[in-house]
């Protein structure tokens, strides 16, 4: 028996292809159809056998690796709202309340982003690229749960158009589109993106600040670790993620889990992640060893730097975006290490932008082509010329 879904696509095919009435909208029809039915045409040029991995699966694995972070983010948003309300909510309530805040952000991000994606595909006559499945989920995970939805729409629009489409679409962008969108919101609407915005709901309890761990500093000679402990940011909490922060970044554990999926499946390049963590650890140890600055983040040590803020989220999911990262292996090591280095330097040296990862990654995105160029030049010089 013929698959009924298949029948629908077969029946509507004449309208969208060839001389059909809605030929213009073929990319939309095609994207829907290929989502359900993976096309697989016969090869006519060598090699005649091909690997089964395609871009749809490639991007699906990234979405899969983001699920732990997403679910924990939803739970934690509810959990923090509960603390803010001064009550201790059961797990289901945490989830439900969290979902009420987070799901609308994700839905708006996908809806608005896909609208732009479709529009550009229709104008250009291109197929729709699966890359947006990832961008559309990454972007909301970098935002505070209190963000107004119109800002989400504006941010993802900026990310998709200026971060990607103006360069020619997926595969040609120099910056990570999700981070471009976040950077736009960060600088355009700083009130929504900093200060006491990281806890959703009404704050009924005094002392619950709703600021992230990164904004904590020791006052009056108190060391930074003691100050963090006083504020409720112990290392254990920072690692598991039961702290205020943007939706996806708080749990180092879930980020590491996602990073493991990406590295094991070889979707993300491990060099970026390992290089990044190494860069951060080495730099933070060096900064730690420099005397003075007891009360600032320079004295926090590598573990706090790893677990606080969005570093692990950024290095696992943002920096590993293959398009905006370097395409050569030595380039990837340097790229990752430089992000780790810059993250610490920005956190320590520039308290105005405590969250250094976003700027570090965007900054290194710009330098990725230069890294590639240098590596290629070096590699070419090692080859026996064949001209």
């Amino acid at each position, binding site marked *: 028996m013929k*698959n009924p*879904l*298949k029948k629908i696509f077969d029946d509507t095919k004449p309208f969208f292809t060839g001389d059909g009435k809605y030929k213009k909208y073929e990319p939309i029809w095609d994207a829907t159809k*290929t989502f*359900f*039915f*993976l*096309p*697989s*045409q*016969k*090869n*006519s*040029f*060598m*090699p*005649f*056998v*091909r*690997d*089964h*991995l*395609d*871009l*749809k*699966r*490639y991007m*699906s*694995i990234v979405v899969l690796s983001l699920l732990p972070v997403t679910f924990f983010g939803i739970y934690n948003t509810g959990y923090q709202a509960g603390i803010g309300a001064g009550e201790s909510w059961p797990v289901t309530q945490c989830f439900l309340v969290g979902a009420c805040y987070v799901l609308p952000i994700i839905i708006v991000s996908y809806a608005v982003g896909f609208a732009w994606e479709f529009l550009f595909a229709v104008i250009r006559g291109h*197929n729709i*690229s*699966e*890359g947006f499945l990832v961008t559309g989920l990454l972007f909301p995970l970098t935002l505070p749960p209190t963000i107004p939805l119109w800002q989400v729409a504006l941010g993802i629009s900026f990310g998709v158009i200026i971060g990607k489409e103006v360069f020619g*679409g*997926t*595969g*040609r962008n120099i910056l990570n589109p999700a981070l471009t969108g976040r950077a736009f919101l960060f600088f355009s609407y700083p009130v929504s993106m900093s200060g006491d915005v990281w806890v959703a709901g009404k704050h009924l309890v005094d002392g619950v600040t709703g600021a992230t761990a990164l904004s904590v500093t020791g006052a009056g000679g108190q060391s930074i670790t003691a100050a963090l402990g006083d504020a409720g940011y112990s290392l254990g909490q920072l690692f598991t993620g039961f702290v205020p922060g943007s939706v996806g970044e708080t749990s180092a554990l879930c980020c590491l889990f996602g990073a493991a999926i990406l590295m*094991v*499946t*070889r*979707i993300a*390049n491990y060099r970026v992640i390992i290089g990044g963590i190494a860069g951060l650890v080495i730099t933070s140890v060096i900064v730690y060893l420099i005397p003075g600055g007891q009360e600032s983040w320079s004295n926090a040590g590598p573990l706090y730097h790893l677990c606080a803020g969005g570093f692990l989220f950024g290095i696992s999911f943002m920096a590993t975006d*293959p*398009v905006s*990262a370097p*395409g*050569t*292996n030595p380039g990837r090591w340097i790229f990752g290490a430089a992000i780790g280095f810059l993250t610490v330097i920005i956190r320590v040296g520039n308290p105005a932008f405590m969250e250094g990862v976003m700027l570090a990654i965007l900054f290194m995105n710009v330098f990725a082509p230069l890294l*590639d160029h240098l590596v*290629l030049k070096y*590699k*070419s010089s090692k*080859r*026996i*010329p*064949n*001209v």
Partner: protein
Amino acid sequence: MKILKISRGFDLNVAEQPDLNCAQLALPSSLGCCAGDIPHIRPKLLVKEGQRVKTGDALFTDKRDTTIQYVSPGTGQVEKVIYGHRRRLMEVVIATESEDEYVEYDPVDLDGIIDMPRDALVTVLKKGGLWQGLRQFPALDFADPDHSPALIIVVMDGNDIFSPRPGIILKDNITAFEAGMAVLRRFSNRLAVVCRKSSLEGIREQSSSVADQITHAAPDIYPAWLPGAVLYQIKQQAAENSTWYIRLDHLVMMGRFLLSGRYPVEKIVTITRPGEQHPHMRVRQGMPLSALIGAMPGNSIVTTGRFNGRVLEKDAHIGFFENTVNIIETGPEEEMFGFARPGLDKPTLSSTFLSSLFRRPANMDCTLHGETRACINCSYCERICPNDLMPSFIMKALHAGELEDALALGLMDCCRCGLCSFACPSKIELTRILSDAMDAYYKDKQ
């Protein structure tokens, strides 16, 4: 013997290994001389339809060097001449007679080959239709006899994973092999004889003296034994870029031709088909496909190599350079939620399917498994390229019109193994792009 090392390549199990027996096939009613599988040739027809030819008579030649002849593999009438796109000569088909009549040359013995003037040797090989078995890097055109190559590579194994085993080709042909080697020694004083590790045993069984002449063993990772990959492993200086190479079956043919004075018409062919094991087959040059495989399964294509080769039409004849026939089935054309399946039976280089947990023979079909997308810089092509190229960067340089950059990145070192296209998740035809660019550059330089 040196062991070549290769860190990258295709190392999956594949089912369909051919049987090591050898079956003799009868003379078919038609034989073809193909021009479709000869790189760079500009064929010029020398016969007319209806004309009777003897075995070894020239059928067509190459306009670029008319002394190189492509000869008839059988005796009989020229049945038809098949033209392809833009009236390019594709095949000359001979209706065979049961009795062979040969064009006779003076037989030469081993000492005779050593004493023969080099020019005379080249002339007789060109006329006999065997010179074109010697190919010259980097474009794999026929060898230029005026050039003294720094190195000649003899490859014992063919272009495919399941090409005929050298042990079977060598059977009863040891003296022909020695004669062929004597010819090669006339052109270069450095020969590299390369063999797959798994073929060594079979060669040793035939003759330990041949096995002793093997200088390099290649691991059983495709394409470690392909001449382009071998050259990249062993070359030390730019002078070796224009190395020659010859395949074992052509070398043996050369030897047999010189020793007997007749065009050698036999060749060994393997056929691989899913779920079946066929023996090696001893057949005539130019055998029609229909006589080799019988009825062709409906949903499949026939190729002369899984990773490199061409698609054969139903009524095609096997070419001079082809000795492997792959029948590859078409997979499901559209798979529901194909991208989200666990994939126990889906061979892949990534670890995104469950099949990567188990090492079992992979069933490979001839479909694309996805749609073409933009390059996302994932480096899967670089990870698998045996010659340390970065195909994605070369492709981008070519698209930007930066030929110099592409050449500096090693474009001409590409061995056309097809693995970059195989691995690309964006389904970009990298092999085609690189291969076309190499040919265009070579043509431009001539």
